[in-house]
């Protein structure tokens, strides 16, 4: 049976996320972007929503079961508030969800509790590399087996909170397959570089990370001796990023729509001109359609299907949607859209980054 209604439980989470997005994330977004600082209480408050904690079973310290659909519904609302803030508060998911999905029993037992039982701490993932054609299926970072241990070499970038992370989940090729390694902060050979400056998500501190002959005991390879199939986790990341893109796009639509109804030209609101009204109609249609594509991919993940293709289509659609919608939002505000007093230019900068954000969010 087809249905497009969230469950009652999901509706409650959506409401909570919506309130946090409107009352906390959005009001903080401008200053956070300008200063490059997210207030810790803001992150802590978001963490208390329990989005990740509700995805982890009681046996590992959480209080629920993972659902990509539930996660994305929350992510949409959070993205509506502010992208950088959402990525910050959800950062531990990028560490925990792959472990939950692909880890061994011992790994889940050892590594999930400290993440979900405690207050927010930046357990994060390191996936992206500084290459124009970065692809998780052909990373430069590689691991080799050596006397039952692993040695990692490579370079990562866009790793949130890398300088404060108690541990990172580092993605690397092992025997030509993408694998993930749990790398505690104290491991020799890990160098965290200076904070990066990016086109968007300026409030989120990200760093390059260099891995030089990083030696890891065998038990830190995710999934145990044979490693794991990480594609479902990577698909879950694409779905998460895509749903944040939906949230950002919805924000841009609502903001530019309200503006268009207020701003007058020749005695009437610009929204009464077809050139503007049609842009808004197309933005709304685009969002409504792509949103369902993302939902479908998440629904397939929840059914245990690989959804590699569907997640990719959702990601491609969501990235193009976000660019189109945020660009038009700026266009509708005209010159004012280019001024940093309005949020649309930030959303447009964030919008362009989505294709590279895989690994920065997970549901």
């Amino acid at each position, binding site marked *: *049976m087809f249905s497009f209604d969230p469950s009652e439980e999901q509706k409650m989470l959506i409401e909570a996320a919506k309130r946090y997005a409107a009352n906390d994330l959005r009001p903080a977004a401008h200053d956070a972007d300008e200063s490059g600082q997210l207030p810790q209480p803001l992150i802590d408050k978001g963490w208390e929503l329990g989005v990740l904690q509700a995805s982890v079973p009681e046996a590992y310290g959480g209080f629920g079961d993972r659902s990509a659909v539930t996660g994305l519904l929350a992510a949409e609302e959070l993205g509506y508030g502010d992208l950088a803030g959402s990525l910050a508060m959800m950062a531990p998911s990028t560490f925990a969800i792959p472990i939950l999905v692909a880890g061994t029993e011992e790994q889940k037992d050892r590594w999930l509790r400290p993440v979900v039982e405690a207050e927010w701490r930046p357990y994060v993932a390191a996936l992206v590399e500084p290459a124009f*054609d970065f692809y998780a299926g052909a990373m430069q970072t590689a691991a080799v087996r050596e006397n039952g241990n692993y040695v990692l070499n490579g370079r990562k970038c866009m790793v949130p909170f890398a300088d404060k992370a108690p541990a990172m989940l580092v993605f690397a090729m092992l025997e030509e397959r993408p694998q993930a390694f749990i790398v505690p902060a104290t491991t020799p050979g890990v160098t965290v570089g200076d904070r990066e400056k990016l086109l968007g998500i300026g409030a989120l501190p990200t760093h390059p990370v260099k891995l030089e002959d990083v030696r890891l005991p065998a038990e830190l390879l995710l999934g145990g001796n044979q490693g794991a199939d990480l594609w479902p986790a990577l698909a879950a990341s694409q779905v998460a990023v895509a749903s944040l893109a939906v949230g950002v796009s919805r924000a841009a639509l609502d903001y530019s729509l309200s503006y268009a*109804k207020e701003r007058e030209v020749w005695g009437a609101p610009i*929204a009464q001109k077809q050139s503007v009204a049609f842009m*808004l*109609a197309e933005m*709304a249609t685009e969002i409504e359609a792509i949103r369902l594509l993302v939902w479908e991919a998440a629904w397939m993940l929840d059914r245990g299907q690989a959804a*590699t293709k569907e997640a990719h289509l959702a990601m*491609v659609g969501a990235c193009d949607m976000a660019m189109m919608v945020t660009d038009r939002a700026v266009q509708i505000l005209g010159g004012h859209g280019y001024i940093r007093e309005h949020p649309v230019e930030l959303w447009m900068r964030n919008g362009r980054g989505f294709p590279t954000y895989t690994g920065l969010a997970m549901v």
Partner: protein
Amino acid sequence: MISFELPEKIQQTVTLMQTVAENMMRPVSRHFDEHEHEIPWDYITFMHEASRAMGGASSMVPNGGKKPEGPRLGYQRLAYMAEILSWGDAAMYLCTPGGMLGSAAVQATGTKDQKERFLKRFQGEKPAFDAMALTEPHAGSAMPAEVRTTAVRDGEQWVLNGEKIFVTSGHKALLDSDGFVVIWATIDPSAGRAGVRPFVVEAGTPGVKVTKLEHKMGIRVSDTASIVLQEARVPFDNILGSPEVEVKTTEGFKGAMVTFDASRPLVAASALGIARAALEGLKEFLQEQGITIRYGLPRSRMSDIEREVIDMEVMHRSAWLLTLKSCWMLDDRRANNLEASMSKIRAGDVVVKITQRVVELMGPLGISHERLFEKWFRDAKINDLYEGTGQINRLIVARRILGYTRRELD
């Protein structure tokens, strides 16, 4: 609970329609395109028998207008039907007997008695057709506000005068079967859209003439008729909706709009069937050439053909889900005016883009009549025109999201 699972009941329809599309439509698709206005009776007869066996489901009215058991899936099922049959041949799909837009109008605005009177013919021995006549030579999208066809009461009859154009299946409804056309006419030309009412004009009504069959870019097997009404008399009870002619409400206008909320998603579904035909055709061809589509790569690592295919799949699937959602809302008795127009915009854009791109990508094989790509390209364009152009639907969506009236945004 959000779910994308195809219901078992619809799966049965899908299987049956696939067989029809593959065996009864595709093999004759080119023939009927080349023989404009020749009627595909084999297909029509088969569909008529199948509809009778299935209890009267038609192309636009689910379950023959009867209340189904269990959850309502009627419009969702019709969307699948429209999609698959249009994958087979969109023009032949338009020739499906047993109720299209005319019946949808009767279903949306008729009384119980009228539904019985007008719709039961579709369950008869012979296939019957219906049509909806809204457009006139001077105006299309401005309808029904600018209807010039008049209906004047004369005792227990209405006398209709005027001309309608672009009537899909008008010929089949009036001359090739015992069908009917729903004619939109005004009972008070000074009242604007408040005076507009739909009237059922049955085959055999004196004073009704089919004056022209259009020659079109695509969907050629579907007849597109001009109808002239000269002192055409219909029984008083053939007026749909309020017979209270003294009370001028916008009920007639609303009736047309309600019909569109049901018909637009189904047109969208039909459009997406054509789009899928083109896209699948391209993918099968690429596969024969040993070209595979590698999903998951960043754009910088893809070939141009991979980018094209993936972009088309994104637009196609997202449009389909939007269409499905607007049908699901209809079945769930929710107001779907916004989503109906959105799905029509999206599907109209998508089918035009996909068929254009596929023909280009196929090169000389795309424009050749040896394959069907060029036909799908021609069949596609109508979907961005009929049941409201893409522009009219953008206007509707814009008004909805902005909370504007027609006066505030036109």
